[in-house]
Protein backbone atom coordinates (compact mmCIF):
# COMPACT_ATOMS: atom_id res chain seq x y z
CA UNK A 1 0.00 0.00 0.00
CA UNK A 2 1.48 3.30 -1.01
CA UNK A 3 -1.42 5.41 0.18
CA UNK A 4 0.30 6.09 3.47
CA UNK A 5 3.04 8.52 2.71
CA UNK A 6 5.38 9.50 5.48
CA UNK A 7 3.97 12.50 7.24
CA UNK A 8 5.73 15.75 7.90
CA UNK A 9 4.99 17.74 11.05
CA UNK A 10 3.05 20.22 8.99
CA UNK A 11 0.89 17.48 7.46
CA UNK A 12 0.26 15.97 10.88
CA UNK A 13 -0.94 19.30 12.21
CA UNK A 14 -3.21 19.73 9.21
CA UNK A 15 -4.65 16.23 9.57
CA UNK A 16 -5.26 16.60 13.29
CA UNK A 17 -6.95 19.94 12.73
CA UNK A 18 -9.26 18.34 10.15
CA UNK A 19 -7.92 20.61 7.44
CA UNK A 20 -7.89 19.72 3.78
CA UNK A 21 -4.87 17.51 3.02
CA UNK A 22 -4.65 16.54 -0.63
CA UNK A 23 -2.91 13.23 -1.15
CA UNK A 24 -3.33 12.19 2.45
CA UNK A 25 -6.88 10.94 2.32
CA UNK A 26 -5.91 7.52 3.62
CA UNK A 27 -4.35 9.08 6.66
CA UNK A 28 -7.36 11.29 7.16
CA UNK A 29 -9.55 8.19 7.10
CA UNK A 30 -7.43 6.43 9.75
CA UNK A 31 -7.47 9.43 12.02
CA UNK A 32 -11.19 9.83 11.64
CA UNK A 33 -11.84 6.20 12.49
CA UNK A 34 -9.57 6.29 15.51
CA UNK A 35 -11.47 9.27 16.82
CA UNK A 36 -14.82 7.57 16.29
CA UNK A 37 -13.90 4.14 17.57
CA UNK A 38 -11.91 5.36 20.54
CA UNK A 39 -14.86 7.39 21.77
CA UNK A 40 -16.67 5.17 24.26
CA UNK A 41 -20.30 5.35 25.29
CA UNK A 42 -21.29 5.88 28.91
CA UNK A 43 -24.13 4.08 30.61
CA UNK A 44 -27.00 6.60 31.02
CA UNK A 45 -27.47 5.90 34.71
CA UNK A 46 -23.76 6.33 35.32
CA UNK A 47 -23.77 9.52 33.30
CA UNK A 48 -26.61 10.91 35.42
CA UNK A 49 -24.74 10.15 38.60
CA UNK A 50 -21.59 11.80 37.32
CA UNK A 51 -23.46 14.94 36.24
CA UNK A 52 -25.25 15.27 39.55
CA UNK A 53 -22.06 14.80 41.52
CA UNK A 54 -20.22 17.36 39.41
CA UNK A 55 -23.02 19.91 39.77
CA UNK A 56 -23.10 19.45 43.55
CA UNK A 57 -19.34 19.67 43.81
CA UNK A 58 -19.29 22.93 41.87
CA UNK A 59 -21.50 24.63 44.49
CA UNK A 60 -20.08 22.92 47.57
CA UNK A 61 -17.93 24.86 50.02
CA UNK A 62 -14.42 25.61 48.86
CA UNK A 63 -11.84 22.95 49.57
CA UNK A 64 -8.11 23.55 49.88
CA UNK A 65 -6.37 23.18 46.58
CA UNK A 66 -4.04 20.17 46.34
CA UNK A 67 -0.29 20.64 46.44
CA UNK A 68 0.72 21.21 42.85
CA UNK A 69 2.80 18.39 41.44
CA UNK A 70 6.17 19.05 39.84
CA UNK A 71 4.91 17.78 36.53
CA UNK A 72 2.12 20.25 36.01
CA UNK A 73 2.54 23.64 37.61
CA UNK A 74 -0.36 25.02 35.57
CA UNK A 75 -1.77 28.18 37.01
CA UNK A 76 -5.32 26.92 37.31
CA UNK A 77 -4.22 24.08 39.58
CA UNK A 78 -2.75 26.52 42.09
CA UNK A 79 -5.77 28.68 42.54
CA UNK A 80 -8.23 27.72 45.21
CA UNK A 81 -11.89 27.25 44.41
CA UNK A 82 -12.64 29.76 47.13
CA UNK A 83 -10.59 32.47 45.53
CA UNK A 84 -12.10 31.62 42.17
CA UNK A 85 -15.59 31.62 43.58
CA UNK A 86 -15.25 35.01 45.16
CA UNK A 87 -13.43 36.50 42.25
CA UNK A 88 -16.34 35.49 40.08
CA UNK A 89 -19.40 36.03 42.27
CA UNK A 90 -18.34 38.90 44.50
CA UNK A 91 -16.84 40.62 41.53
CA UNK A 92 -20.12 40.27 39.68
CA UNK A 93 -22.13 41.60 42.60
CA UNK A 94 -19.84 44.54 43.25
CA UNK A 95 -19.53 45.54 39.64
CA UNK A 96 -23.13 44.71 38.95
CA UNK A 97 -24.32 46.86 41.84
CA UNK A 98 -22.07 49.67 40.73
CA UNK A 99 -23.34 49.32 37.20
CA UNK A 100 -26.96 49.47 38.31
CA UNK A 101 -26.24 52.51 40.49
CA UNK A 102 -24.30 54.13 37.70
CA UNK A 103 -27.05 53.46 35.20
CA UNK A 104 -29.62 54.91 37.55
CA UNK A 105 -27.53 57.98 38.08
CA UNK A 106 -26.99 58.28 34.37
CA UNK A 107 -23.26 57.92 34.67
CA UNK A 108 -23.12 54.75 32.65
CA UNK A 109 -25.40 56.21 30.03
CA UNK A 110 -23.09 59.13 29.59
CA UNK A 111 -20.04 56.85 29.17
CA UNK A 112 -18.15 58.23 32.12
CA UNK A 113 -17.13 54.78 33.42
CA UNK A 114 -13.60 53.72 32.48
CA UNK A 115 -13.24 51.41 29.52
CA UNK A 116 -11.96 48.49 31.60
CA UNK A 117 -15.05 48.58 33.82
CA UNK A 118 -17.30 48.88 30.81
CA UNK A 119 -15.64 45.88 29.24
CA UNK A 120 -15.94 43.89 32.42
CA UNK A 121 -19.61 44.73 32.75
CA UNK A 122 -20.27 43.83 29.15
CA UNK A 123 -18.43 40.58 29.57
CA UNK A 124 -19.83 39.49 32.90
CA UNK A 125 -23.03 41.30 33.80
CA UNK A 126 -25.98 39.40 32.50
CA UNK A 127 -28.97 41.05 34.18
CA UNK A 128 -30.64 41.85 37.47
CA UNK A 129 -32.37 38.49 37.77
CA UNK A 130 -29.05 36.75 37.44
CA UNK A 131 -27.64 39.14 40.02
CA UNK A 132 -30.42 38.27 42.47
CA UNK A 133 -29.79 34.60 41.91
CA UNK A 134 -26.09 34.98 42.56
CA UNK A 135 -26.75 37.07 45.65
CA UNK A 136 -29.12 34.40 47.02
CA UNK A 137 -26.50 31.72 46.44
CA UNK A 138 -23.88 33.71 48.29
CA UNK A 139 -26.20 34.20 51.27
CA UNK A 140 -26.99 30.50 51.28
CA UNK A 141 -23.33 29.57 51.21
CA UNK A 142 -22.57 32.00 54.02
CA UNK A 143 -25.36 30.49 56.09
CA UNK A 144 -24.05 26.98 55.45
CA UNK A 145 -20.57 28.08 56.41
CA UNK A 146 -21.78 29.63 59.67
CA UNK A 147 -23.64 26.42 60.49
CA UNK A 148 -20.57 24.33 59.78
CA UNK A 149 -18.39 26.56 61.93
CA UNK A 150 -20.92 26.36 64.73
CA UNK A 151 -21.04 22.57 64.46
CA UNK A 152 -17.27 22.43 64.48
CA UNK A 153 -17.07 24.60 67.59
CA UNK A 154 -19.67 22.49 69.30
CA UNK A 155 -17.82 19.32 68.41
CA UNK A 156 -14.61 20.74 69.81
CA UNK A 157 -16.38 21.70 73.06
CA UNK A 158 -17.85 18.21 73.38
CA UNK A 159 -14.48 16.65 72.76
CA UNK A 160 -12.93 18.86 75.42
CA UNK A 161 -15.64 17.97 77.89
CA UNK A 162 -15.18 14.35 77.07
CA UNK A 163 -11.48 14.61 77.73
CA UNK A 164 -12.06 16.44 81.00
CA UNK A 165 -14.56 13.80 82.10
CA UNK A 166 -12.17 11.05 81.15
CA UNK A 167 -9.41 12.74 83.08
CA UNK A 168 -11.62 13.06 86.12
CA UNK A 169 -12.57 9.39 85.97
CA UNK A 170 -8.94 8.46 85.82
CA UNK A 171 -8.20 10.52 88.91
CA UNK A 172 -11.12 9.01 90.78
CA UNK A 173 -9.95 5.57 89.88
CA UNK A 174 -6.45 6.37 90.96
CA UNK A 175 -7.87 7.62 94.28
CA UNK A 176 -9.38 4.30 95.38
CA UNK A 177 -6.41 2.45 93.95
CA UNK A 178 -4.06 4.65 95.88
CA UNK A 179 -6.10 4.34 99.01
CA UNK A 180 -6.18 0.61 98.73
CA UNK A 181 -2.46 0.59 98.26
CA UNK A 182 -1.95 2.67 101.35
CA UNK A 183 -4.11 0.32 103.39
CA UNK A 184 -2.12 -2.63 102.25
CA UNK A 185 1.09 -0.91 103.12
CA UNK A 186 -0.17 -0.09 106.56
CA UNK A 187 -1.30 -3.63 107.19
CA UNK A 188 2.01 -4.85 106.06
CA UNK A 189 3.77 -2.53 108.38
CA UNK A 190 1.53 -3.48 111.24
CA UNK A 191 2.17 -7.13 110.62
CA UNK A 192 5.83 -6.56 110.40
CA UNK A 193 5.81 -4.55 113.58
CA UNK A 194 3.97 -7.30 115.33
CA UNK A 195 6.46 -9.86 114.21
CA UNK A 196 9.26 -7.72 115.46
CA UNK A 197 7.69 -7.41 118.85
CA UNK A 198 7.17 -11.08 119.08
CA UNK A 199 10.70 -11.69 118.17
CA UNK A 200 11.92 -9.21 120.69
CA UNK A 201 9.78 -10.77 123.33
CA UNK A 202 11.26 -14.15 122.58
CA UNK A 203 14.72 -12.79 122.61
CA UNK A 204 14.14 -11.12 125.94
CA UNK A 205 12.71 -14.25 127.46
CA UNK A 206 15.59 -16.25 126.19
CA UNK A 207 18.01 -13.82 127.65
CA UNK A 208 16.34 -13.88 131.00
CA UNK A 209 16.60 -17.63 131.07
CA UNK A 210 20.26 -17.45 130.35
CA UNK A 211 20.82 -14.92 133.09
CA UNK A 212 19.00 -17.07 135.59
CA UNK A 213 20.99 -20.09 134.71
CA UNK A 214 24.20 -18.17 135.04
CA UNK A 215 23.24 -16.93 138.42
CA UNK A 216 22.52 -20.44 139.61
CA UNK A 217 25.78 -21.57 138.25
CA UNK A 218 27.67 -18.85 140.02
CA UNK A 219 26.07 -19.67 143.31
CA UNK A 220 27.07 -23.26 143.05
CA UNK A 221 30.64 -22.31 142.32
CA UNK A 222 30.79 -20.03 145.27
CA UNK A 223 29.59 -22.74 147.56
CA UNK A 224 32.24 -25.11 146.38
CA UNK A 225 34.91 -22.52 146.87
CA UNK A 226 33.94 -21.85 150.42
CA UNK A 227 33.99 -25.50 151.20
CA UNK A 228 37.40 -25.91 149.73
CA UNK A 229 38.75 -22.97 151.61
CA UNK A 230 37.44 -24.28 154.85
CA UNK A 231 39.17 -27.61 154.37
CA UNK A 232 42.47 -25.96 153.65
CA UNK A 233 42.37 -23.86 156.76
CA UNK A 234 41.64 -26.90 158.89
CA UNK A 235 44.69 -28.68 157.53
CA UNK A 236 46.92 -25.78 158.42
CA UNK A 237 45.62 -25.75 161.94
CA UNK A 238 46.34 -29.46 162.30
CA UNK A 239 49.83 -28.99 160.97
CA UNK A 240 50.38 -26.18 163.38
CA UNK A 241 49.27 -28.22 166.27
CA UNK A 242 51.60 -31.02 165.34
CA UNK A 243 54.47 -28.63 165.06
CA UNK A 244 53.88 -27.38 168.61
CA UNK A 245 53.66 -30.87 169.84
CA UNK A 246 57.10 -31.59 168.42
CA UNK A 247 58.60 -28.54 170.05
CA UNK A 248 57.14 -29.37 173.30
CA UNK A 249 58.79 -32.77 173.56
Amino acid at each position, binding site marked *: *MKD*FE*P*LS*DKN*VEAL*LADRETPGLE*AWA*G*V*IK*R*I*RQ*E*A*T*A*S*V*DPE*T*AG*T*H*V*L*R*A*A*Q*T*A*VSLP*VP*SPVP*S*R*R*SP*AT*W*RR*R*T*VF*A*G*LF*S*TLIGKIVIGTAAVAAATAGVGASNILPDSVDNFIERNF*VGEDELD*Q*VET*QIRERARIRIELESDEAQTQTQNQQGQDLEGQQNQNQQGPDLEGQQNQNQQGQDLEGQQNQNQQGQDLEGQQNQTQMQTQSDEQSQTQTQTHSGDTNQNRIQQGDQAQLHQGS
Partner: protein
Amino acid sequence: MEPAEFRATVEAAQAGAEWAWSRLYRDLAGPVLGYLKSRGAVEAEDLLGEVFVQVARNIGSFRGDARSFRSWVFTIAYHRLIDERRYRSRRPVEPNDIDRGGGPGGDVEQEALQNLGTESTVKLLGRLTPGQQTVLLLRLLGDLTIDEIAHTMGKRPGAVKALQRRGLERLREIIETEGVPL
Protein backbone atom coordinates in the same frame (compact mmCIF):
# COMPACT_ATOMS: atom_id res chain seq x y z
CA MET B 1 -20.32 24.95 20.74
CA GLU B 2 -20.27 28.63 19.88
CA PRO B 3 -17.98 30.78 22.02
CA ALA B 4 -20.80 32.78 23.62
CA GLU B 5 -22.78 29.63 24.23
CA PHE B 6 -19.75 27.91 25.73
CA ARG B 7 -19.09 30.90 28.01
CA ALA B 8 -22.67 30.89 29.28
CA THR B 9 -22.53 27.13 29.82
CA VAL B 10 -19.35 27.38 31.85
CA GLU B 11 -20.73 30.21 33.98
CA ALA B 12 -23.86 28.22 34.65
CA ALA B 13 -21.75 25.18 35.50
CA GLN B 14 -19.76 27.29 37.94
CA ALA B 15 -23.03 28.13 39.65
CA GLY B 16 -23.94 24.43 39.79
CA ALA B 17 -26.53 24.27 37.04
CA GLU B 18 -27.20 20.65 36.23
CA TRP B 19 -28.14 21.36 32.63
CA ALA B 20 -24.73 22.99 32.10
CA TRP B 21 -22.89 20.01 33.54
CA SER B 22 -24.99 17.68 31.48
CA ARG B 23 -23.94 19.56 28.37
CA LEU B 24 -20.27 19.61 29.21
CA TYR B 25 -20.40 15.94 30.13
CA ARG B 26 -22.12 15.01 26.90
CA ASP B 27 -19.41 16.69 24.85
CA LEU B 28 -16.44 15.22 26.65
CA ALA B 29 -17.36 12.05 28.52
CA GLY B 30 -17.16 9.77 25.46
CA PRO B 31 -13.67 10.79 24.33
CA VAL B 32 -12.35 10.91 27.90
CA LEU B 33 -13.75 7.45 28.63
CA GLY B 34 -12.28 6.17 25.38
CA TYR B 35 -8.91 7.59 26.31
CA LEU B 36 -9.04 6.00 29.76
CA LYS B 37 -10.06 2.62 28.39
CA SER B 38 -7.48 2.72 25.61
CA ARG B 39 -4.80 3.45 28.15
CA GLY B 40 -5.78 0.49 30.27
CA ALA B 41 -7.77 2.00 33.11
CA VAL B 42 -9.23 -0.84 35.17
CA GLU B 43 -12.37 0.97 36.33
CA ALA B 44 -12.60 3.52 33.59
CA GLU B 45 -16.14 4.72 34.34
CA ASP B 46 -15.36 5.37 37.99
CA LEU B 47 -12.28 7.22 36.92
CA LEU B 48 -14.36 9.26 34.50
CA GLY B 49 -16.58 10.34 37.39
CA GLU B 50 -13.53 11.38 39.38
CA VAL B 51 -12.25 13.41 36.46
CA PHE B 52 -15.47 15.41 36.34
CA VAL B 53 -15.49 15.91 40.10
CA GLN B 54 -12.00 17.34 39.80
CA VAL B 55 -13.17 19.58 36.96
CA ALA B 56 -16.08 20.75 39.13
CA ARG B 57 -13.78 21.57 42.02
CA ASN B 58 -11.63 23.84 39.93
CA ILE B 59 -14.05 25.19 37.33
CA GLY B 60 -14.46 28.38 39.34
CA SER B 61 -10.99 29.44 38.29
CA PHE B 62 -11.19 28.31 34.66
CA ARG B 63 -10.72 30.96 32.02
CA GLY B 64 -10.64 30.09 28.35
CA ASP B 65 -12.50 28.83 25.34
CA ALA B 66 -13.94 25.44 24.45
CA ARG B 67 -10.67 24.10 23.06
CA SER B 68 -8.69 24.99 26.16
CA PHE B 69 -11.45 23.53 28.35
CA ARG B 70 -11.18 20.25 26.46
CA SER B 71 -7.41 20.24 26.86
CA TRP B 72 -7.76 20.96 30.54
CA VAL B 73 -10.19 18.07 31.07
CA PHE B 74 -7.88 15.64 29.26
CA THR B 75 -4.94 16.84 31.31
CA ILE B 76 -6.89 16.01 34.45
CA ALA B 77 -7.75 12.61 32.96
CA TYR B 78 -4.09 11.94 32.23
CA HIS B 79 -3.06 12.67 35.81
CA ARG B 80 -5.92 10.72 37.34
CA LEU B 81 -4.91 7.74 35.23
CA ILE B 82 -1.38 7.93 36.56
CA ASP B 83 -2.70 8.14 40.12
CA GLU B 84 -4.87 5.09 39.49
CA ARG B 85 -1.92 3.14 38.13
CA ARG B 86 0.19 4.00 41.16
CA TYR B 87 -2.63 2.92 43.44
CA ARG B 88 -3.06 -0.33 41.56
CA SER B 89 0.64 -1.09 41.60
CA ARG B 90 0.53 -1.14 45.41
CA ARG B 91 -2.45 -3.46 45.59
CA PRO B 92 -1.99 -7.24 45.62
CA VAL B 93 -3.37 -9.18 42.70
CA GLU B 94 -6.95 -10.34 43.25
CA PRO B 95 -8.24 -13.69 41.96
CA ASN B 96 -10.73 -11.90 39.70
CA ASP B 97 -7.92 -10.14 37.94
CA ILE B 98 -6.18 -13.42 37.24
CA ASP B 99 -9.38 -15.00 35.95
CA ARG B 100 -9.86 -12.18 33.50
CA GLY B 101 -6.34 -12.54 32.29
CA GLY B 102 -5.14 -9.24 33.69
CA GLY B 103 -2.12 -9.98 35.88
CA PRO B 104 -0.31 -7.42 37.97
CA GLY B 105 -0.49 -4.72 35.35
CA GLY B 106 0.94 -6.77 32.54
CA ASP B 107 -2.05 -7.43 30.26
CA VAL B 108 -4.34 -4.68 31.44
CA GLU B 109 -3.87 -2.65 28.31
CA GLN B 110 -4.53 -5.63 26.09
CA GLU B 111 -7.63 -6.40 28.10
CA ALA B 112 -8.78 -2.82 27.69
CA LEU B 113 -8.35 -3.10 23.96
CA GLN B 114 -10.31 -6.34 23.91
CA ASN B 115 -13.11 -4.69 25.83
CA LEU B 116 -13.38 -2.13 23.08
CA GLY B 117 -14.64 -4.81 20.74
CA THR B 118 -13.56 -5.24 17.17
CA GLU B 119 -12.47 -1.68 16.51
CA SER B 120 -9.50 -2.46 14.34
CA THR B 121 -7.89 0.95 14.33
CA VAL B 122 -7.96 1.19 18.09
CA LYS B 123 -6.38 -2.24 18.35
CA LEU B 124 -3.62 -0.88 16.18
CA LEU B 125 -2.85 1.66 18.87
CA GLY B 126 -2.32 -1.18 21.31
CA ARG B 127 0.72 -2.19 19.33
CA LEU B 128 2.46 1.10 19.91
CA THR B 129 4.57 1.94 22.93
CA PRO B 130 2.74 3.50 25.90
CA GLY B 131 4.32 6.88 25.20
CA GLN B 132 3.31 6.79 21.54
CA GLN B 133 -0.23 5.73 22.49
CA THR B 134 -0.55 8.54 25.04
CA VAL B 135 0.67 11.21 22.66
CA LEU B 136 -1.52 10.09 19.76
CA LEU B 137 -4.64 9.67 21.91
CA LEU B 138 -4.19 13.04 23.60
CA ARG B 139 -3.78 14.63 20.20
CA LEU B 140 -6.58 12.78 18.46
CA LEU B 141 -9.16 12.72 21.26
CA GLY B 142 -8.11 15.56 23.54
CA ASP B 143 -6.99 17.96 20.85
CA LEU B 144 -3.97 18.94 22.93
CA THR B 145 -1.07 20.69 21.25
CA ILE B 146 2.49 19.42 21.34
CA ASP B 147 3.39 22.01 23.97
CA GLU B 148 0.40 21.14 26.14
CA ILE B 149 1.21 17.45 25.99
CA ALA B 150 4.84 18.18 26.81
CA HIS B 151 3.78 20.22 29.82
CA THR B 152 1.37 17.53 30.96
CA MET B 153 3.76 14.62 30.54
CA GLY B 154 6.78 16.47 31.84
CA LYS B 155 8.70 16.05 28.60
CA ARG B 156 10.33 18.39 26.15
CA PRO B 157 8.25 19.36 23.09
CA GLY B 158 10.86 17.78 20.85
CA ALA B 159 10.49 14.47 22.65
CA VAL B 160 6.70 14.58 22.29
CA LYS B 161 7.03 15.35 18.60
CA ALA B 162 9.34 12.40 18.19
CA LEU B 163 6.86 10.09 19.94
CA GLN B 164 4.11 11.34 17.66
CA ARG B 165 6.21 10.84 14.57
CA ARG B 166 7.34 7.34 15.52
CA GLY B 167 3.81 6.37 16.53
CA LEU B 168 2.39 7.37 13.17
CA GLU B 169 5.27 5.68 11.38
CA ARG B 170 4.62 2.47 13.29
CA LEU B 171 0.92 2.66 12.40
CA ARG B 172 1.84 3.04 8.80
CA GLU B 173 4.12 -0.01 8.86
CA ILE B 174 1.43 -2.17 10.47
CA ILE B 175 -1.23 -1.06 8.01
CA GLU B 176 1.01 -1.55 5.01
CA THR B 177 2.46 -4.93 6.02
CA GLU B 178 -0.59 -6.53 7.59
CA GLY B 179 -3.20 -4.95 5.38
CA VAL B 180 -5.55 -3.90 8.17
CA PRO B 181 -8.93 -3.12 6.58
CA LEU B 182 -9.94 0.48 6.83
